[in-house]
């Protein structure tokens, strides 16, 4: 646990440097890497059956986390029982029921609607099976491994403010304040901007939507650029995830307003590609590390079964990809 904390601290501090100085990326990478290796030496799942229950594997995030978990269980000498519900809640519940009957040494649940899975996580707990989660907080889970959304929000905001030289108007997509990670990221932006009096968030804020996120962002930004036709009247566009950023970036490029930079979160491969393009307005994208999150969750299982106490939440640092370090980050994420 101590190790976990110090590792996290170093990672975060490194990320700060990373957003300012591109060269720091390498140091951050090697530090995180060495932590994993050091932790692995003492961990073992020999003879243990570890259930991995995924809500689905059709998104980049869950596919990466799922596969990394299976590999990590095998690497530590355990036997994975991996089931994928294909984003069907009925199937998810049936699989959890059967998993409980299989009496594995632990169950790791990746994502899922809390009200649907929680009664069955409770039944697993009642049956004496330890439950851990990835990216879904539950009172029935011993430990939840997830990204540090406070860190994500702060890093992205600092990068944005630094890129626009600490002054100018920024456009914000704030359609999903009801989703906790999005709310945290938005609050962090507001916290940072508060100390830069010349930076102004334009009112009214925009609302990003699902589905047709890209098209809708494109339309909204195109309209807004017509409203603010003067170059320099808008410095940056911010969104809590990177699919609206994709549409916004396309709109900015189409309007020839390449002085504007766009910012988002998630590390979708297509957005990272835009960040890597020196002519694209995409400024930065904070990428979560789904594979690392998956591995960390399994290492937490091993720690738990070895008798250690786990923290409520384990945060895996996210990687901020900007124009300077995006290739580094993509390589680390195993994209391109």
């Amino acid at each position: 646990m101590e190790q976990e904390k110090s590792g996290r601290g170093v990672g975060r501090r490194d990320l700060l440097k990373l957003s300012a100085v591109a060269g720091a990326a390498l140091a951050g990478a090697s530090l995180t890497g060495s932590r994993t290796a050091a932790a692995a030496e003492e961990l073992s799942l020999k003879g243990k059956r570890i259930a991995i229950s995924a809500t689905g594997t059709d998104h980049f995030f869950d596919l990466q986390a799922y596969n990394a978990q299976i590999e990590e269980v095998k690497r530590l000498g355990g036997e994975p029982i991996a089931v994928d519900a294909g984003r069907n809640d009925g199937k998810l519940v049936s699989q959890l029921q059967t998993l409980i009957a299989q009496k594995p040494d632990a169950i790791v649940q990746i994502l899922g609607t809390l009200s649907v899975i929680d009664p069955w996580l409770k039944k697993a707990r009642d049956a004496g099976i330890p439950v851990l989660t990835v990216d879904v907080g539950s009172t029935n889970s011993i430990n939840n491994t997830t990204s540090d959304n406070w860190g994500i929000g702060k890093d992205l905001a600092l990068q944005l403010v630094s890129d626009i030289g600490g002054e100018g108007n920024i456009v914000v997509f704030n359609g999903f304040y009801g989703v906790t990670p999005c709310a945290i990221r938005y609050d962090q932006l507001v916290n940072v901007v508060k100390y830069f009096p010349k930076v102004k968030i334009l009112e009214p804020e925009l609302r990003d939507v699902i589905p047709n996120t890209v098209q809708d962002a494109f339309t909204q930004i195109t309209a807004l650029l017509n409203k603010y036709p003067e170059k320099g009247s808008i410095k940056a566009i911010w969104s809590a995830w990177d699919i609206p950023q994709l549409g916004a970036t396309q709109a900015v490029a189409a309007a020839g307003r390449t002085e504007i930079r766009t910012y988002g979160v998630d590390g979708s491969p297509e957005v990272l590609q835009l960040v890597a393009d020196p002519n694209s307005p995409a400024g930065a994208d904070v990428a979560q590390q789904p594979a690392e999150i998956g591995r960390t969750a399994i290492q937490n299982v091993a720690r738990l079964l070895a008798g250690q106490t786990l923290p409520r939440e384990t945060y895996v640092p996210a990687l901020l990809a900007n124009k300077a370090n995006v290739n580094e980050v993509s390589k680390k994420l195993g994209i391109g």
Partner: protein
Amino acid sequence: MSVDIQLAPVIHFEPGKIGGDTTRSGHLAATALRAGSLIAFVAILVVFSATAPYFLSVGNIGNVLGQSAISGVLAIGLTVVLIAGGSNVVTGGIDLSLAANMGLSAAVYATVAQLGYGDATAVAAALLTGGLIGAVNAFAVVGAGIVPLLATLAVMNIVAGLELVLTQNTVIPASTPLLTALSSSGPFGIPALAYVLLAFTLIAAAIVQYTPTGLRLYAVGEFPDAARAAGLPVRRLLAGAFVASGLCGGFAGILSVSNLSGSTTGSGEMLLPVVVTALLGSVFSRRLVPTVIGTLLSTLFVGFLVNGFQLLNISSVLVSGVQGLLILLVVSATTLLRRQEA
């Protein structure tokens, strides 16, 4: 009455008209298919029992029964329509709105419960929703004379749209005493839903297989002209079958709310597995026709298959392939047999 119009088994009916050889081979093939399907079922159970840990435990069998409850109730509802509408896959009886019906009924139940009404009101609302959908189907098929395949497809889209409007495509959590009771375990640690499935099957089988009404349903489906000539209310029976199927959708909706602690999206995905299950049910019946017990057996067959695959740690990716293969086998086998009879 029931004696008058009793359907002699189709296969026994023909001998006089057709040469003995064809009939005997058809009969043999039917017996082989029937016995073969049961042998396959038993063989799969034996293999899983021998190889998959926990498979033969009471808890696991109870789990499979409980997990099969929702699809079982839906498939039995569809079976009633298959019986009354005839077994022709294209022009015969089919109810494609069943899964969407379950989704909307579940959403109605969860919404009503969340508004603070009691279980009785919520149950009534869900069953009413299901029954209404069934009535619309009945009107479209019997009143307007649209082929069931198209009529229920259209109704399916309407119902799915209504569910989207009601839920805004979100999860509506629900918790009531009835839901808690349904999602808990009954005697022997077996899920309450397992008992619900068994009780529902017994009641449905009693009505469909052992009452004059049930027999008339078969008559209407197999020989509509003869049924009409015998003075049976063909249209009313067919309409009744669709309403019964709709009620099954409403009932399955209630079970689904209890299983998922609310109403969730994606109920439409149940449709194809339910159609597969109901069609597959024919091979578990004595005369290769849709029956309630046959449908229960095929529901459990699919349930045990999925369960065994998970216990054996085999990728669930294979299961849908196996299901597709089974339905292809069943449909081609029954089609071939029927052609031989004709």
